[in-house]
């Protein structure tokens, strides 16, 4: 059993993880400040902020020998007998010195800096810096520049940690960023005419510990401390990246990557990052509509009337012996798919359930960082993990398929159901659309209209909605909570980031009203708990709780993940959340 001594206290190290001093100290509640270190990038030890006193304990004699000089914690392996001192006078004098150095040429423009409030310089200045500054010379003002159409570099704020440079070299392998000039004139830059435009480029903004790299999309829009963060799942492709959806005043402002070593590691793609915009669209459905209430066309109706019309219409068709079909979008959550399937099967046990069209674009794009190739410095702590942007542009095909298989033993794809509807087989059709981009264009819509009674649940005014008998305004991805099953078969839980828009209801509530479960808001966790007891594939989920990094459904064992040590940059961790008290990462378990 490996033990480590931190500030005089012995701790037992976890088995099988290769940790450095920063991680080990964090695990046992001691903070070692750092800037340039990142667990996915090679160790270069150039910021020198994490320097501590290191020693080793002789296993036989118990004698402790300290290294006479300071040692960077990022490069120090936490092994049996390692002794770390993180709070000595020597260390704190050093930290003050580094803070003084870093602030020499740093403009104090915090009031207009996007990073303010989640800034490594601010936090560490307060905790480890000093109030006075001895520098009285002329400062260097490095220029501001654009590194791409989407990202701005305020070089005057840069502290040269080179995280962004290492990211483009080691993770994306594209190497757009580099360092030019020497000494305190050193700058981050791109090569002439070659902007930073790889599909993961936005991550450099998340990586930057200060406000040097800025997302122009977010620039000067919001103060960080006004944003409430919601642990969500990106719905732009079947990867199911973990994101923090940041919201204020009923609007989403940005997505940031949230760590999940089993899915997206520390990254999200730019497409996913910018997908928050579709939740803020002004033309989202703002009311329910029904046909034939007053005159021939679609008329705006209340929620109660719309749901009543839909329910009665479907029931009438079933009573009259007509065939009923439902088309479930792969954008639905597991809970919604379950309630909708149960509802339609409840109306008519012969109801046919099918999967909606699977949007697809291009081909899968995988970034496979290597442990050695393309890297610099010490790579011994690294556990490289690939990141894939999938061509399948929907979050929950696997989940909806699992539900459909349970209810009718097979999955009917869209081509089959579309042909059957077009042939006039069904008298009633319930389509849950919910896609971000309209899933059914005019041709598809015309085919689906061949049923006598058409109910559509959607978020925007689509061609299909225009032809429907009843239009239910459902929730966008940001407005609903629920679980998705990603390409690995991993069930992940996504919080709602926004309240329902005026005139709409979350899909789950709409379906609950249709099923006659009453009008009280229904919690997705309650449904998930029910799914777990009813559908064997989901039986691994207990009490509606999904573990932090998700869980593989269908009985497949979880693959072992090495080096999946919880990680958030300290300047992004909410202050006061002690790393060991509320679970790893300082985040409450869902």
């Amino acid at each position: 059993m490996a033990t480590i001594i931190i500030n005089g206290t012995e701790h037992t190290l976890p088995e099988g993880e290769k940790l450095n001093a920063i991680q080990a100290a964090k695990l046992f509640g001691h903070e070692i400040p750092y800037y340039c270190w990142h667990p996915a990038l090679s160790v270069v030890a150039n910021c020198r902020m994490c320097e501590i006193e290191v020693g080793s304990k002789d296993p036989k004699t118990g004698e402790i020998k300290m290294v006479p000089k300071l040692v960077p914690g990022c490069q120090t392996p936490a092994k049996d007998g390692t002794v770390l001192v993180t709070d000595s006078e020597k260390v704190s004098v050093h930290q003050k010195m580094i803070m003084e150095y870093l602030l020499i040429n740093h403009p104090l423009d915090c009031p207009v800096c996007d990073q303010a409030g989640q800034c490594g310089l601010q936090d560490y200045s307060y905790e480890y810096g000093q109030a006075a500054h001895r520098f009285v010379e002329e400062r260097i003002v490095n220029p501001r520049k654009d590194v791409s159409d989407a990202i701005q570099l305020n070089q005057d704020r840069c502290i040269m940690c080179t995280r962004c440079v290492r990211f483009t070299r080691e993770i994306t392998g594209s190497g757009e960023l580099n360092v030019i000039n020497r000494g305190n004139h050193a700058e981050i830059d791109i090569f002439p005419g070659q902007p930073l435009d790889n599909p993961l480029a936005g991550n450099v903004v998340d990586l930057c510990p200060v406000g040097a790299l800025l997302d122009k999309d977010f620039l000067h829009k919001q103060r960080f401390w006004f944003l409430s963060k919601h642990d969500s799942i990106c719905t732009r492709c079947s990867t199911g990246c973990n994101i923090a959806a940041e919201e204020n005043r009923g609007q989403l402002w940005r997505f940031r990557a949230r760590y999940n070593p089993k899915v997206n590691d520390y990254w999200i793609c730019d497409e996913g990052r910018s997908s928050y915009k579709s939740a803020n669209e002004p033309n989202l459905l703002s009311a329910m509509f029904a046909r034939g209430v007053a005159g021939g066309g679609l008329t705006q109706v209340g929620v109660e009337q719309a749901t009543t019309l839909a329910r009665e219409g479907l029931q009438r068709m079933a009573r009259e012996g007509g065939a009923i079909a439902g088309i479930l979008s792969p954008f639905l959550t597991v809970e919604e798919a379950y309630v909708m399937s149960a509802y339609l099967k409840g109306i008519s046990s012969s109801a046919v359930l099918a999967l909606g069209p699977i949007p697809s674009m291009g081909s899968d794009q995988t970034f496979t960082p290597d442990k050695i190739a393309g890297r610099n410095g010490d790579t011994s702590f690294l556990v490289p993990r690939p990141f894939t942007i999938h061509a399948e542009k929907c979050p929950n095909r696997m989940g909806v398929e699992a539900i459909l298989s349970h209810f009718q033993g097979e999955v009917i794809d869209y081509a089959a159901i579309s042909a059957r509807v077009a042939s006039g087989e069904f008298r009633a059709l319930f389509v849950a659309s919910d896609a971000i981009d309209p899933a059914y264009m005019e041709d598809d819509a015309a085919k689906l209209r061949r049923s006598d009674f058409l109910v559509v649940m959607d978020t925007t005014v689509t061609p299909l909605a225009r032809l429907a008998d009843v239009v239910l305004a459902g929730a966008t991805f940001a407005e609903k909570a629920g679980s998705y099953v990603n390409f690995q078969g991993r069930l992940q839980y996504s919080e709602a980031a926004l309240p329902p828009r005026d005139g709409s209801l979350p899909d789950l509530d709409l379906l609950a009203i249709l099923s006659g479960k009453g009008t009280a808001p229904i919690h997705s966790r309650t449904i998930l708990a029910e799914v777990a007891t009813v559908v064997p594939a989901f039986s691994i989920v207990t009490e509606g709780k999904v573990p932090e990094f998700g869980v593989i459904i269908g009985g497949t064992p979880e693959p072992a993940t090495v080096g999946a040590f919880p990680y958030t940059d300290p300047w992004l961790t909410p202050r006061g959340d002690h790393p060991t008290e509320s679970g790893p990462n300082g985040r409450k378990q869902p």
Partner: protein
Amino acid sequence: MAAFEPVLSRNWNVPDSHTLPVYESRGGYKASRKALTEMDPDKVVQVVKDSELRGRGGAGFPTGLKWSFLPKDRTQTFMCVNGDESEPATFNNRLLIERDPHQFIEGILIACFATKAATAYVYLRFEYIHAFRIMERAIADAREKGHLGKDIYGSGFDLEVYCHRGAGAYICGEETGLIESLEGKRGWPRIKPPFPAIEGAFRKPTVVNNVETLACVPHIIERGADWFKSIGTPKSYGPKLYCISGHVNKQVCVELPLGVTTNQLIEEHAGGVWKGRKAKAAVPGGISMGLLSAAEFDVPLDFEEIRKPGCLGLGTAAVTVMDETTSMVDYLYNSCRFFAHESCGQCTPCREGTGWLYKMMKRIKAGGGRLEDLDIMDNLAKNMGIMPGTTICGLADGAAWPVRNALAKFRGEIEDYIKTHQAPRYQVTPLQQAIAHGQSPVGSDTPMPDPTRRLPGPDLSTRATAHA
């Protein structure tokens, strides 16, 4: 001393010494033939170890020991020869390459045989165009005569030597900076571990040796370790090329046994201090090694003794003499400017510290100095470098040492300069002063509000009165 016979520089004054026939006619490539045909690699390493040859590049690390750090089960090894020679006032490698390239190639050949390296890269300073051309020619000639290439001397050992020119950065003389630069990257030193012997150029085990170190190797093989150890002082054996420059009558590079004194160099080899003046100070081994005052000129210049007067080390043994008219402020200004210009910008203390020192010296020189600046400089200098453990490479130590030595040995003079050179234009303004001290500006009657809790940092309540 009289019996000392130069070996490294023995061919320098022979006509056409850079050509292969001349070198061969003077006994060249005998040692390499002996090593490759009669000895095995481990034997060569052992002989070099026994000779206690220490690296001539600056740090003085034992060469044989360095070679023995290579992993036993390695499949590929690279030899990098450090010919970057960017330390100011150092020019011995240049002479070694330009005047006797084949001695150097023979050294490479033996060292590569000992370390089982089939490829050697000679990293030459950008400015050494002439040396580069001579090396290219010498390599081609040696290859033609079978001293390089495949199956050298029928021993089954292959070696290719390539010359690579740097791009003019001082930092690329640091061994890992050199490796990065050789790989085509920015010359930023790497953190250690992994050491180059385990993971160096192209992530393969690599040996980095100085030109002069390798030039010693053929002679050690030819004459034996005991001969080598008969020269020099304890722990510093062998001949050394001393470069003497600055305020002397004759700027020369001479080969002498390790352990001569500065006085001997000036008087016996450099023709004394110029213009009949007296010496005031000397840089013992390249600017980064610190400063010797005239009173310390009888300290032997070897790897050990030189540390006693507070210098960083022997360095490149390039002695720069300053006469009595030289201002130490000018010396410090030049030294700080050099390191601020050459800092690679990787580690925070060096990147910002060298720039800060330079700006401070610039202000002092212009007439805006304060006495407290010297304390700040001393404090900065003591906290940067690999000695306190705050940087990756030794450049910051090199930047700090001149400051530390000059302040320790010539502080009085610098203080006098500050007191007598005051120009209002360059002085620190009351506002800057106030910000620096964390107190309200002079003349303002609004006191700074007391913080509700003591802010992190030094206790300012005592400071405010000290500078009031």
